[in-house]
């Protein structure tokens, strides 16, 4: 980038200077943060899996049974959680490992549908409306939230249970409204107040959960 260091470029684009404008001491301080933050996520990973490993295994088994019976995975979330939902849907449809392709849909993928429902009815109904149209009994609804409080997710999983779909919630903080009795069949909570750390551990959770599902679906049926 030598061309950007001439005085003219510096005048036009002062942000192109090679040295950051903060002191080296600030950089040194900042460089301590990544290991601390990573350790925080790792502690949460241990906390979640120590407390919930059995439930994760039984949830994976229930999802495998639903998928083996023809169910699809319908995933939803808001903001960063919407991208998490899209991420796991893509991993299921086009696995990075040896697993089989599994039918899955992200309920935020269709911007025409999301904005139509949001505009005509309410943003609170963007997922439940799609479930009524696309969902079938035996499907799996995966609701991802850092708070557990999103009205549109709570409405979606309530209706999904009524329609005899399997419901799985992934939440943070204290689980929020998803924690109430009867809202979801399986709930996993990453007990943190940091949205970033919650999302990092939630990603580990849904990766491992669905890797188990893929493994279950590849099992050769035994005589057991």
């Amino acid at each position, binding site marked *: *980038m030598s*061309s*950007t260091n001439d005085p003219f470029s510096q005048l036009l*684009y*002062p*942000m*192109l*200077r090679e040295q*950051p*404008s*903060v002191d080296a001491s*600030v*950089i*040194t301080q*900042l*460089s*301590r*943060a*990544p*290991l601390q*933050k*990573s*350790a925080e*996520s*790792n502690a949460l*990973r*241990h906390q979640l*899996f120590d407390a919930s*490993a*059995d439930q*994760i*295994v039984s949830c*994976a088994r229930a999802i495998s049974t639903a998928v083996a019976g023809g169910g699809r995975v319908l995933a939803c979330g808001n*903001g*960063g959680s*919407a*991208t*998490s939902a*899209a*991420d796991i849907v*893509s*991993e299921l449809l*086009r696995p*990075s490992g040896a697993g089989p392709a599994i039918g899955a849909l992200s309920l935020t993928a269709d911007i025409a549908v999301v904005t139509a429902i949001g505009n005509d009815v309410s943003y609170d109904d963007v997922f439940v409306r799609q479930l009524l149209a696309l969902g079938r009994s035996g499907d799996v609804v995966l609701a991802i939230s850092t708070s557990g409080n999103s009205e549109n997710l709570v409405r979606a999983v309530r209706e999904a249970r009524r329609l005899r779909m399997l419901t799985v919630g992934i939440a943070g903080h204290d689980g929020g409204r998803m924690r109430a009795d009867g809202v979801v069949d399986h709930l996993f909570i990453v007990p943190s107040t940091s*949205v*970033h750390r919650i*999302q*990092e551990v939630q*990603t*580990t959770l849904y*990766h*491992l959960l669905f*890797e*188990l599902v893929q*493994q279950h679906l590849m099992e050769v049926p*035994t*005589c*057991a």
Partner: protein
Amino acid sequence: MMMVMKSAAEAVDVDLAFLRDGVAARCAAGDEYFAAIAQELAGCAAAMADRFFAGATLLVFGSGAGATDAQHNSVEYVHPVLPGCRALAALSLTNDVSTVTGILGGPDPLDVYAHQLRALSRPGDIALAFLASPHDGASLRGLRTAREREMLTIALSTGGTPSELPATHTFHVDHDDPLVAQELHLATYHMLWELTHIVLNHRGIAEARR
């Protein structure tokens, strides 16, 4: 006739061991990776803060899982989760499905991000690319185009040996499980966001005191 059968209890034990190993793999990989990149990450965040301070836009791109990561990364800048953090300009180049599929179905699919960068970016902007392999043609071409346009270039790569990428800052995860690598990249761009805002606040206070 003897048949080897896995009982339900044995199957559960296998699954529990898989989860235990999965968590252990992530913790070990994270400790090693973040120790190695901490200084680079802080320097990158400081450089990003400088560019944002001067009005830059962050343009993010990547294919497959990198496409959802690009969207995740850009929404964090536009709509910050922490109160008091200012909204910053960011665009994911994986959102516009008409443009993306149009280019992928055309004569030069590897131009998918480079084309959008030529149309949307300005000198001084920031490009952040996800590469599932160091040979990811579309992201590589995007980075080269960004560099030609005097943008700050950041590569989050995995798969294969890290080759010299056309980027100012490269964060390469050397792990054979792409899901683990993706998780470490998620934490990487989260931390870049967090540290960038710390520097911006620091600079804001310093400028106000002048």
